[in-house]
Structure formats: structure tokens, C-alpha cells
């Protein structure tokens, strides 16, 4: 990210000069983190993404324009479809994996055995394709933020919220499928609770369902955003101090944080998948 966005230089210098007057000087960082309607390809210019007029549904105005993050989600999806179908085809030719298939297989087997089978059990295999897609999608979105000109779609609350919403639906559906609509929501209240506490417990547990999804949303978003802010801050130090001498230190730290980010990208993809599986497991095995 810090290599590609040479645009910082111009941006930052401008802001640094402006901020002498005492203004805020962090908006340039937000510019690089938050969603936008253009894809920056500085110094080669930028691509403006197509925009649609907002749609009104009820009282809500929804803008379905394509943004940077949506574009990168699609890019990630395209890459996943291409790469994984190549892998799938390689299995048809011979059953012994080689090359890329080996790498993918490690994750697939891990998610199947260590996440789905160990947390949910045999029932979870029905939802295996969801967990696999979730993991690879989040992982690739996370990693895309680390390459030049890339953007982290998972560093957007709307994206993580959308994923968490799907996970929330899956958790409910899995529970309802197993216990029936009434049985599932009745099962939310733990056994052995006195009758007068039960309604209260039901409300708490019901809100807990949303809290889980909310936690998923914020965790992924915060983790992906935090690393980028740290990297940008470290790079920004060079321009704030206006000294080349700061550069080696800043860049050394930025590289370190970037490596850390690679780790975090994997960990967060794992955690999101793992927690979704855990909640699905909880709703299937209610007691």
C-alpha cells in the first residue's frame, strides 16, 4: 500500500503545508482508507467508476453506485473463481495434488477438519462451501489492501456488515433447520432457568444473536483498518518532519507493520470463519 500510493507524497505535502495554520492533517489518511468513487492509479491518473442514481425504497435512499471497495470485491471474486476452478480442474486430471492445489488444499482441509467438523460436527458439512468461500474471500480482500494500488474491501463497515449479516442469517437458518422455527427460539433460553426469569433471558439471548453479528462486523473492520492507519502514519512522519533522515526508520517500521498485516490478514480471515462456525455450532447444539 505504501509503495503504490505515491499519491501520499503530493497529498501529504499539501496537507502538511495547510496544517501549518493549525488545521487537521489526518484527512489524507482517511482518503486512502475509506471508500471512494474512483480508483487511484497515481501518477497515471484515476478511473472514475460508474454511478447510478439513488434508489428509494420506502423512506430509505440507497445508492447502488459502484465504489472502489465493490470493484475490489469483484476483482477478488473473479480471482477466486479463476484460481479455484483451475485447482478443481487439476484434481480431475490426477488425484495427487501438486503446485497450487497443494496450497489451496491445506486451507480447505483445515477449514473442513479443524473448523467445521471439530466445531459444528457432521451437520456442518452442509454449510462447508459457505465457510470455505467466506475464508478465501475475506483472506484475499485482506491481502489486497497490502499490494500497491489495492484497497481493503474488508476495511469498510458496509462490507464487513454485509458479511456478518449473511453469517447472522446462516446462524438462524441452521438453528431453525435443526430445531424448527419455534423450537430454535425456545431453545435460546437455557434449561433450568426459573419461569419468571425466562422472558428476560430470552430477550438477552435474542439481543446476543445480534451482538454476535455486530462483533464480527467491528472486529474485522477494526483490524483491517488499524494496520493501514499505522502504516500510513509511519510514512506520514517523513513528510511531517520534512526530513529524509526519518525515512529509514519510518520505512523499517512500515515494512514490519506490513509483514504483521499479512499475519493479521490470515488471522482475521480465520477468526471470522471460526466464529461464524462456532455460532452456527451453538445454534445447532443448543444445550
Amino acid at each position, binding site marked *: 500500500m505504501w509503495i503504490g500510493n505515491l499519491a501520499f507524497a503530493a497529498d501529504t505535502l499539501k496537507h502538511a503545508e495547510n496544517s501549518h495554520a493549525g488545521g487537521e492533517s489526518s484527512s489524507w489518511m482517511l482518503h486512502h482508507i475509506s471508500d471512494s468513487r474512483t480508483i487511484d492509479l497515481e501518477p497515471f491518473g484515476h478511473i472514475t467508476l460508474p454511478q447510478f442514481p439513488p434508489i428509494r425504497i420506502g423512506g430509505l435512499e440507497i445508492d447502488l453506485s459502484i465504489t472502489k471497495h465493490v470493484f475490489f470485491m469483484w476483482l477478488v471474486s473473479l480471482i477466486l473463481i479463476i484460481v479455484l476452478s483451475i485447482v478443481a480442474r487439476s484434481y480431475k486430471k490426477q488425484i495427487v495434488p501438486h503446485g497450487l492445489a497443494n496450497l489451496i488444499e491445506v486451507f480447505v482441509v483445515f477449514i473442513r477438519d479443524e473448523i467445521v467438523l471439530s466445531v459444528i460436527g457432521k451437520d456442518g458439512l452442509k454449510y462447508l462451501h459457505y465457510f470455505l468461500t467466506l475464508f478465501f474471500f475475506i483472506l484475499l480482500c485482506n491481502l489486497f489492501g497490502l499490494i500497491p494500488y489495492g484497497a481493503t474491501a474488508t476495511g469498510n463497515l458496509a*462490507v464487513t456488515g*454485509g458479511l456478518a449479516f449473511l453469517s447472522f442469517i446462516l446462524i438462524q437458518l441452521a438453528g431453525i433447520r435443526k430445531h424448527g422455527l419455534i423450537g430454535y427460539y425456545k431453545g435460546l433460553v437455557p434449561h433450568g432457568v426459573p419461569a419468571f426469569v425466562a422472558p428476560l433471558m430470552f430477550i438477552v439471548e435474542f439481543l446476543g444473536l445480534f451482538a454476535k453479528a455486530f462483533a464480527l462486523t467491528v472486529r474485522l473492520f477494526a483490524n483491517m483498518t488499524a494496520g493501514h492507519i499505522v502504516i500510513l502514519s509511519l510514512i506520514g512522519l517523513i513528510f511531517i518532519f520534512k526530513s529524509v533522515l526519518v525515512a529509514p526508520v519510518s520505512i523499517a517500521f512500515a515494512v514490519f507493520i506490513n509483514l504483521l498485516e499479512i499475519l493479521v490478514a490470515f488471522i482475521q480471515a480465520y477468526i471470522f470463519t471460526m466464529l461464524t462456525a462456532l455460532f452456527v455450532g451453538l445454534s445447532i447444539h443448543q444445550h
Partner: protein
Amino acid sequence: MLEINPGVAIWTIITFLILVAILKKVAWKPIIDALTQREDSIRKALEDAQKAKEEAQRLMEENKRNLARAEEEVQRIIREGRETAERIRAEILEKARKEADMMIERAREEIERHREQAMLQLRAQVADLAIEVASKLIGEVLNEQKHRKLVEKYLQEISSEKRA
């Protein structure tokens, strides 16, 4: 940064659901099937190997048992052979000894008989000789009849003395 753009959320949901559907068809199903198939084949191969090992073990046990039985049989046959041989040897030996004893006995009897015969002959000859000598010495003093009786009598005494 913290605002939520519902449009992006909707795009996320649509994108992700389509992605799940496509990947399930083109990637996950074939990959998982291949994995399962491979795991099954490995499990089967291992089970087969285990079975083959047990079979081999069983055969080896059986062979060992058979060998032990054969060994025992051989030992028994050798022992029996040895006993039979021993018995036959003893029998032959016994028979030979008996035969030898019998032969010796017979020979001894023969010898005794011959000796007795010789003795009798000798006695008669000696008597004759003695009478002849005595008659030559004494002349015709006594008749032959009286002499013979006398000599017989002396001889009898001598032989009885010898025997006693």
C-alpha cells in the same frame, strides 16, 4: 470512515451470495469430492494393508505350528525307530547268546562223552596191559582169571580213591 453505505452492503451481500453459488459449483464440490475420494482410497489402502498383514501373520503362525508339529512327528519317529532298533538288537543279542550257550553246552556234553568213552577204553587197555605185564612178570603163577579179578579190584580201589 465509520459511515455505512447501504449500497455497498447490498453489493457485498449480492456479490458474496453469487460467489458462494459459483464457487460451490466450480470449485468446492469437485475439490471436496476429490479429497474425500482420496481419503477413502487411502483409508481403504491402509485397511487392505492391515488385512494383508494380519493374513500374513496368521499364515506365519500356522506355518510355525505346522513346523512344530512336523518337528514333533519327526522326533517321535526317530524315538520309535531307536526304540525298535534297541529292542531288535537286544533280541538278536539274546538269541545269539542263547545259541552260543547251547552250542557250548552241547560241545561240553560231547567232550564229556568222549572223555568218558576214552576213560573206559583207557581203563580196559590199562587193565589188559597190566595183566599182560604182570603175567609176563609173574609168569604162569596165577591163572588169568584170578589175575583179572585182582587187577580189577585194585583198579576199582584206585579210581574210587581218586574220586574221593
